[in-house]
């Protein structure tokens, strides 16, 4: 009798205690969150609104020096014509002939091939979590993803790709763009980012695949055509809507790169690559992978 009472009491006490514990952890969790967020909270608001609301009507916006504007606009014009009269029609034809899953796999393959660039740059920025995630993605996608054709690291384990390149690494250490640069075929870049891509090419396995120049260019062209076949006409939209597409793309490029440098998310205690909930080692369990 006493035993039975004890059992019932224990059962009830756990039922009643659970919400209490949960509530408590929620409160402390919230307190922690707020404690660490106060700084970034004010900073985020300052970043978001100061440019618009300081001074009578906000600041004048000059995002990047553009001393070579004449040359850049020329290249921009060339790229534009190349896009509309050659590259896009080819990409469109390719889109009709090759089914989408195949094109997505080609895109995944090239993305996976460039993973060493992201791994190396995450390490150079001491972003160990991104380093771990990218390394994990590279290993999982190269093996379970059949040489990178599929992206189970994202589609099953939910680990997203983190874009990293040497231009961003330099930005992370406080090196500015220098000036804006439009490169033939490549498109918007800057002195810093163009230098960065040269450095990155040393981490690119395609460089060591013993390809001749023509073959290498062919591979790059194929990669671009394939990527464009999956793009929902972004460039057309910009051309259609912007007053001056050159200025619009320049501003968008600089803002996007600024957001990607993202220095604010860095803290010194992010040293553990297995930190956080991003990792799910069940991914290496084939039963789980097949949904069993």
């Amino acid at each position: 009798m006493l035993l039975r009472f004890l059992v019932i009491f224990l059962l009830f006490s756990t039922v009643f205690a659970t919400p209490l514990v949960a509530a408590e952890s929620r409160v402390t969790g919230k307190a922690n969150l707020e404690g660490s967020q106060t700084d970034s909270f004010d900073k985020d608001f300052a970043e978001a609104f100061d440019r618009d609301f300081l001074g009578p009507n906000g600041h004048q916006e000059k995002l990047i020096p553009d001393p070579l504007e004449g040359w850049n606009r020329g290249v921009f014009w060339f790229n534009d014509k190349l896009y509309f009269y050659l590259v896009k029609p080819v990409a469109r034809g390719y889109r009709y002939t090759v089914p989408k899953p195949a094109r997505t796999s080609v895109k995944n393959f090239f993305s996976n091939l460039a993973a060493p660039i992201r791994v190396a740059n995450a390490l150079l920025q001491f972003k160990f979590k991104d380093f771990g995630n990218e390394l994990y993605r590279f290993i999982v996608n190269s093996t379970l993803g059949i040489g990178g054709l599929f992206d189970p690291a994202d589609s099953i384990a939910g680990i997203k790709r983190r874009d990293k390149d040497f231009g961003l690494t330099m930005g992370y250490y406080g090196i500015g763009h220098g000036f804006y640069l439009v490169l033939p075929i490549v498109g918007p870049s800057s002195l810093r980012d163009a230098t960065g891509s040269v450095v990155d090419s040393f981490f690119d396995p395609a460089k060591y695949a013993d390809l001749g120049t023509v073959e290498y260019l062919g591979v790059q062209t194929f990669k671009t055509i394939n990527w464009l076949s999956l793009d929902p006409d972004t460039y057309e939209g910009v051309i259609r809507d912007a007053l001056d597409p050159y200025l619009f793309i320049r501003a968008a490029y600089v803002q996007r790169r600024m957001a990607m440098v993202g220095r604010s998310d860095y803290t010194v205690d992010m040293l553990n690559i297995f930190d956080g909930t991003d990792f799910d080692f069940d991914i290496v369990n084939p039963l789980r992978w097949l949904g069993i």
Partner: protein
Amino acid sequence: MKTIIFGGMLLLLLLAPAWGMPEPQQQVEEMVNSVLSVLQKPDLTAAEKRTQVSGMVQKYLNMSSMARRTLGEYWNSASEEQRKKFTDLFVKVLEGTYLNRINDYSGGTVQYLKQRVKGDKAIIDTKFVSADLEIPVQYKMIFENGSWEVFDVVIDGVSLIRNYRSSYGEIIRKDGYDGLFALMEKKVSDMQPTEQPLAPQLNQ
């Protein structure tokens, strides 16, 4: 006992206005849901969707503030007439821009991640999720004239107002206000809906 109940009811009545005031995120959700409900109707033509969405969005946007801060310091040096002309054209360009996006929509939903409010300003973090892509979309809002209104949209780190401001400022520096107005007028007339979509959207 009666007084407690009565007191409670009185308290509820007093609190009601505070509850009734729409939170900034609610405003964004209302706007997004009303637009998505039109876009997701399968039996509407593109032109019909356009007319239904047109005017639906405007009440959630603080157009006058957007126009004013897009010009930034050039707003100060503009005459009253120029300001009015700019605001009119700006509203048309902005509307044309988002109406043109209607054809691009091919499914997807919006997730609301975080709402942060500081005084009369708010930041709403959302994520647009479709089969192929995930795009972080941030709404910057201000509280003016008794309601929360969208002031800027930041898509994947790119702020629309900052983009506009840097472009428009540069055009004014080179070609003056008249040059800017001429470009805007041309853009507005180019943006009028065409019967045929620019590119066939098959098998994307």
